[in-house]
């Protein structure tokens, strides 16, 4: 199948390409990508008019929870894949904190098979660091690597045992496999950020140091072993500072920031709305500014959603009793675009780098995150010229636990192409 996308603004950080141009797709690969006047369409070429829209490499989300197996009432690989392409994501990386956890090659194969059966976004599994996510013994990392995991993580929980973490880092190095960590010292227990607002609201606070202590631990471990560490959902200003410092010392560290941490703060919890409860919690405005600084200056490598679906009943409870997490794939582009490009003047090129080029690099996906000829034809066509209000009723995800309902935003996905095929059309 052949496709020609015309009249759009090509933005491809991998080639430093930005401007009016065209894109040619053939047999699931990018055939040609160039600026300037589009050539005449071939007879067997389907033409897509991207007038007024950006044409960028497909977005890649390094952090989603698809809940399958085990919690299919919250989300499935199918509903999550639909949400992904509706949000412009052609590739998603799912976390292993399912029930049972993805700690064995058979489960890795299940995720891959089901992802392919659904056939929307590329679904890439991660495996747990520890068996049963119990934080005690290493999982069969090598076996899972062979089956196709792209990283190991115990996400949902941190690896509290530093000895185990150092062994995991050392072991994963053999496969050049990425270790991801949810940084949190679980001895600090709270349901929001500790600070003025937790004091005011009478909610138990989790201090920023709960995250920063483990983040620094992970940097130290990676520095010592020489392994690659990816710090998940960094939420504090000091965290950004420590990543910047570690990078300057040559530690193989990368990190992600979520759309919600860059756009919301602990002050938003005043209504006790459980859709603002997640881990790590929303931090202070000062932290938020530092996250934006890190996103702007290159310290932060990518935007990841930590898409965490819960049922309506799960979340419609007392704040303390509500589970952590919010959905994010269908709001990632508008929230990030509005926060970073509209409010903070980030170049669109940098935004695309954060949402596609860099996540591909972190996962060593050579054929993704780029519109270069020969790359996989994963393409997102999106526009940002009109303001609209987020409406969760229209979401493809099974879940509605979203703090952005009714928020005025810019940035809308028009078309998501995966492997040369249109998988979503607005």
């Amino acid at each position, binding site marked *: 199948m052949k496709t020609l996308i015309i009249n759009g603004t090509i933005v491809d950080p991998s080639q430093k390409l930005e401007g009016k141009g065209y894109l040619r797709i053939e047999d699931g690969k990018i055939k040609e990508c160039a600026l300037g006047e589009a050539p005449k369409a071939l007879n067997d070429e389907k033409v897509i008019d991207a007038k007024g829209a950006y044409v960028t490499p497909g977005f890649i989300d390094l952090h989603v929870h698809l809940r399958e197996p085990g919690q299919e009432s919250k989300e499935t690989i199918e509903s999550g894949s639909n949400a992904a392409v509706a949000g412009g994501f052609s590739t998603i990386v799912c976390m292993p904190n399912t029930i049972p956890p993805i700690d064995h090659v058979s489960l890795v194969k299940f995720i891959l098979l089901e992802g392919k059966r659904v056939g929307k976004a590329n679904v890439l599994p991660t495996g747990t660091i520890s068996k049963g996510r119990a934080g005690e013994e290493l999982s069969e990392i090598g076996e899972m690597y062979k089956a196709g995991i792209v990283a190991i993580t115990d996400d949902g929980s941190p690896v509290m045992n530093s000895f185990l973490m150092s062994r995991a880092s050392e072991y994963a190095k053999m496969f050049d496999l990425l270790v991801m960590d949810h940084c949190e010292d679980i001895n600090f227990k709270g349901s929001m950020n*500790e*600070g*003025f607002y*937790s*004091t*005011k*609201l*009478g*909610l*138990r*606070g989790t*201090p920023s140091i709960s995250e920063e202590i483990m983040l620094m631990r992970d940097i130290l471990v990676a520095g010592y072993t020489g392994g690659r560490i990816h710090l998940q959902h960094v939420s504090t200003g000091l965290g950004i500072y420590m990543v910047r410092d570690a990078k300057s010392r040559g530690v193989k560290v990368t990190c992600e920031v979520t759309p919600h941490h860059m756009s919301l703060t602990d002050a938003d919890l005043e*209504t*006790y709305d459980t859709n603002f409860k997640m881990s790590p919690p929303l931090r202070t405005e000062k932290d938020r500014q530092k996250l934006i600084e890190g996103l702007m200056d290159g310290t932060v490598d990518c935007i990841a959603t930590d898409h965490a679906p819960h049922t309506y*009943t799960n979340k*419609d*409870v*007392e*704040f*303390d*009793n509500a589970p952590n997490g919010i959905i994010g794939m269908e709001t990632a582009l508008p929230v990030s675009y509005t926060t970073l490009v509209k409010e903070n003047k980030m170049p669109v090129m940098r935004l695309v780098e954060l949402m596609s080029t860099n996540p591909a690099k972190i996962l060593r996906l050579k054929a993704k995150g780029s519109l270069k000829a020969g790359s996989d034809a994963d393409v997102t066509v999106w526009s940002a010229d009109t303001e609209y209000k987020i409406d969760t009723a229209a979401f493809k995800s099974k879940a509605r636990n979203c703090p952005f309902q009714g928020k005025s935003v810019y940035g809308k996905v028009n078309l998501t192409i995966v492997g040369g095929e249109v998988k979503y059309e607005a």
Partner: protein
Amino acid sequence: MPWTKKDLLGLEKLTAEEITIILDTAKAFSQIATRSIKKVPALQGKTVVNLFFEPSTRTRVSFEVAEKRLSADIVNVNIAASSVTKGETLLDTVKNLCAYRIDAIVVRHSCAGVPHYLAENIEPSIVNAGDGMHEHPTQALLDIYTLREKFGDLKGLKVAIVGDISHSRVARSNIWGLQKLGAKVTVVGPSTLMPREIEKMGEGVEVSYDLPATLKKVDAVNMLRIQREREQQVQFPSLREYARYFGLSTKLIDQTPESLIVMHPGPINRGVELSGTVADGPRSVILQQVTNGLAVRMAVLFLVTGGTKISEE
């Protein structure tokens, strides 16, 4: 200015005028308690549910007596938060009660924000009888009522609140209420039990770790009950050491100005935060607080259910 609110969720969102309306209404009700027939028909035909998810004797009894004196029909529902029927949510429980067309719910819950959550989701008036570490507005109102009785105007009055400020809803409600009426608050306690950035709760708020020095400068001291449960073991070393630094002993009270009054929301840990002699001594207004609590709760229930003027018969 008349009272317009359907709920009493906390003191943070009330104005000084609204607090004054409650206090003035309570004053009128307090006279009823001195009569031989102590009942008024103000809430006749109305149903009030006392919904307690946390064990409480004092607050629940106080509300219950207040409701009876107002001639309300009362339903007491005590549910241990742990034994809420599996699968049923808090909202299910409360909506079931609402199906009886009740008029008000007095709610206590160990989770902060529960009264706000209910008020957003149901029709009847909600009175917060304590939500987690957040607010306990009627307790603060009775504390303030007691102070007003002793000192008149609260402008410029200095009040110390002593104890586990972190976990105290009484402290938070007092901080909001006292500041709105122009009083200044010094919170005193171990640094591990002092919530972060509490001084940002207002210009009148000061933090101190020195009880003797603070007591020399204040007009009233509110001693909070100190508990040392399992999770508190890393917060401070022992009750003995706590009492040494933050307990109000006979010796310490003797070093304070004669006019200083001692309050306590009860129940008292005698010999820990407060010596028995001080609790029973001339500076203590603890039992007056209890009496005032009744009038304050009558006033609150009366106002939130739409009462405007207290009928004589």
